[in-house]
């Protein structure tokens, strides 16, 4: 055994805690989230007989006796309440009403004294092909319905992909808004953070510490507290409006809260450190004499900045922007508390599916959309930063 491979072995052992951690708390949850989005075993698992019978159904006509019998057999055989719950949730998500229908049906089937002849006699709704269609469409172990729904598409009765009507699903609108808000926040963070970082990097001693401390301070406060603080500042009778009114700058209160303005202000504040710190860390590596050199070569301050400092610090701006943008698209509390109805971001939709309705498939699918967007952004960033000159 060579020395090199034993070194590799030792370093593997040293890395083991990290790898275990990554697998346990990163790779596995991510993987299970993604598999939740596409796997769809809940119905097929419990309804094997129905699955066979439904394969021959024309998807239009009322249910045949065979179909009803098979479903009743299947339901009688179920002894796992939680699995039944999963199935009902899945079906209700495709077709509202399954909850009560199934509840009624299963309790009727439990009545051994007076067994029902068929399903229709339990509830008239079983006559409708829609409910059977929902079952028939849920019998594949994998599904694309969550992923399609995440971007406002669905399958029609014929199984073709079509756009969902705009009053039923606006995920793409909310996604676009999420990216737009995140983009605006990134822009304003850069607008404020870049000069801030330049000033901080040009100072030294306590002044620099003070400036960095001021930008780090928000990181040491809880997000909720910071958001609440903005609420106090921005509200109609809050500090900012009071001050501006007292100073006579405005005559009526500005609408700063429950709208886009408030969300952008609060999120920019909360995320500013993620912009300032990467820019700052790049700036302090830029030799101090480049700007004097540019001036001595005849460059006026603005042109010197555009030709020298800006291109050299773009890497910091890009990584700061990436950090801010990626954090911003996942924001939840701030838009919920400070924003208006038109500022709801995709996270609150994900939260509803995850905790409110336990539809983890949909939550996973929306999460995947975010993940893909993030990865695309990251690859753009990686491409840009590898082309970024100045570093070997």
């Amino acid at each position, binding site marked *: 055994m060579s020395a090199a491979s034993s070194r590799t072995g030792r370093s593997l052992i040293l890395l083991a805690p990290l790898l275990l951690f990554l697998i346990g708390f990163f790779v596995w949850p991510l993987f299970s989230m993604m598999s939740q989005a596409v796997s769809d075993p809940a119905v097929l698992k419990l309804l094997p007989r129905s699955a066979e019978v439904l394969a021959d159904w024309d998807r239009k006509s009322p249910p045949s006796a065979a179909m009803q019998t098979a479903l009743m057999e299947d339901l009688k055989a179920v002894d796992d309440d939680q699995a039944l719950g999963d199935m009902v949730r899945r079906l209700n998500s495709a077709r509202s009403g399954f909850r009560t229908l199934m509840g009624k049906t299963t309790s009727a089937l439990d009545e051994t004294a007076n067994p029902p002849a068929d399903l229709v006699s339990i509830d008239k709704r079983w006559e409708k092909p829609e409910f059977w269609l929902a079952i028939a469409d849920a019998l594949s172990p994998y599904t694309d319905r969550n992923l399609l729904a995440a971007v406002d598409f669905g399958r029609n009765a014929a199984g073709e992909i079509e756009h969902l009507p705009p009053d039923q699903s606006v995920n793409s609108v909310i996604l676009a808004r999420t990216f737009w808000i995140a983009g605006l926040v990134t822009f304003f963070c850069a607008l404020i953070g870049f000069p801030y970082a330049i000033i901080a990097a040009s100072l030294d001693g306590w002044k620099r510490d003070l400036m960095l401390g001021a930008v780090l301070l928000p990181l040491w406060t809880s997000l909720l507290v910071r958001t609440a603080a903005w609420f106090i500042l921005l509200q109609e009778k809050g500090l900012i409006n009071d001050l501006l009114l007292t100073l006579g700058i405005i005559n009526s209160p500005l609408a700063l809260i429950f709208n886009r303005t408030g969300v952008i202000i609060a999120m920019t504040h909360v995320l500013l450190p993620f912009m300032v710190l990467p820019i700052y860390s790049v700036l302090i590596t830029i*030799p101090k*004499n*480049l700007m*004097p*050199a*540019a*001036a*001595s*070569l*005849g*460059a*006026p*301050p603005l*042109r*010197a900045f555009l*030709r*020298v400092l800006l*291109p*050299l610090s773009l890497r910091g701006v890009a990584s700061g922007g990436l950090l801010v943008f990626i954090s911003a698209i996942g924001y939840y509390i701030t838009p919920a508390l400070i924003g208006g109805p038109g500022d709801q971001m995709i996270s609150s939709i994900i939260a509803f599916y995850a905790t409110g309705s336990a539809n983890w498939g949909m939550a996973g699918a929306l999460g995947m959309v975010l993940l893909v967007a993030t990865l695309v952004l990251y690859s753009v960033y990686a491409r840009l930063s590898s082309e*970024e*000159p*100045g*570093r*070997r």
Partner: protein
Amino acid sequence: MAEFIRFERITKFYGPLCVVENLDLGIEKGEFVSLLGPSGSGKTTLLMMLAGFEQPTSGNILLDGTAINAVPTHKRDMGVVFQSYALFPHMSVGENIAFPLQMRGIGKAEVDERVKRALGMVQLSALVDRRPSQLSGGQQQRVALARALVFEPRVVLMDEPLGALDKNLREQMQLDIRDLHRRLGLTIVFVTHDQSEALTMSDRVAVFNKGRIEQIGTPRQVYDEPATRFVAEFIGETNLVEGVVEAVQGQEATVRLPSGAQIVSAVSGTVARGQSVFLSIRPERVDLSEARGEARNVLETEVTDSVYQGDHLRVQLQNATHPLIAKLGRRSREFPPGTKVFAAFSAGDCRVIAP
């Protein structure tokens, strides 16, 4: 010839700290002037003020007769070469050199032409598309030089430009820069703490100490005729011997050493009879022989140590009251320790310096 650059009573404070004090200096067109001194002596600050990176606390800087205190750096038209090169890392060599031309709104064709010429001048034509990080230190400094010269500045300022290079490369670059200076008729202000570099390259050397100029003159003047003890010690190696002036005759003085020996020496400035002074005697001007000889100044000494240093033989001597060092040509004979010898030197080879 009128002075091209004039520093008038320049004073510069950093907070309470005075780094340049009431300094006057004139530089002529086409002249190569070195500002030489230890670190913290104010030489770099003076250069920074000339470049416009710093403002004097008081006093005026004149360029060609006009005060330029209020002129921002980018309008001063001075090429600056930094010790750490200050090349723009995100631009290629060619782009770096083209930068000052583009800033001046020069057309692309002419820019290309002049970049090509400047690269040829520093013998780097093949590297036009490289990034600075792909070049060696010497190559980077040549690019910096080309960049500072390509726009034909009125003055070229160099701040320890060779400090980061190793010895051989440094010496090559010294000659290259001197050659460029002569060929192009540049006015160069060159900051260095390396006295041999200053002597090698300059028309004149200004020796700085504690914010003042101790002496300014040709390399020969500052070396052979140090005006102050600081200059004598800072430039080259010297023997400093205390004594008292016995008599002054024109440009010469007779000095009595504590050992009783009398030395006749050239004088820098003015001294008076009875004054305590230093004698500066350059080691390489000292001759040793076992016979007293005919020289005007002779000291009786004993060899304490003798070291062969390749290009010279370094002999340490002890007089009755003070040590003395002599550097002898490599053809000189050996002087084993303990040998009694006479150290001789002419009146022109030593210097009386008022303390």
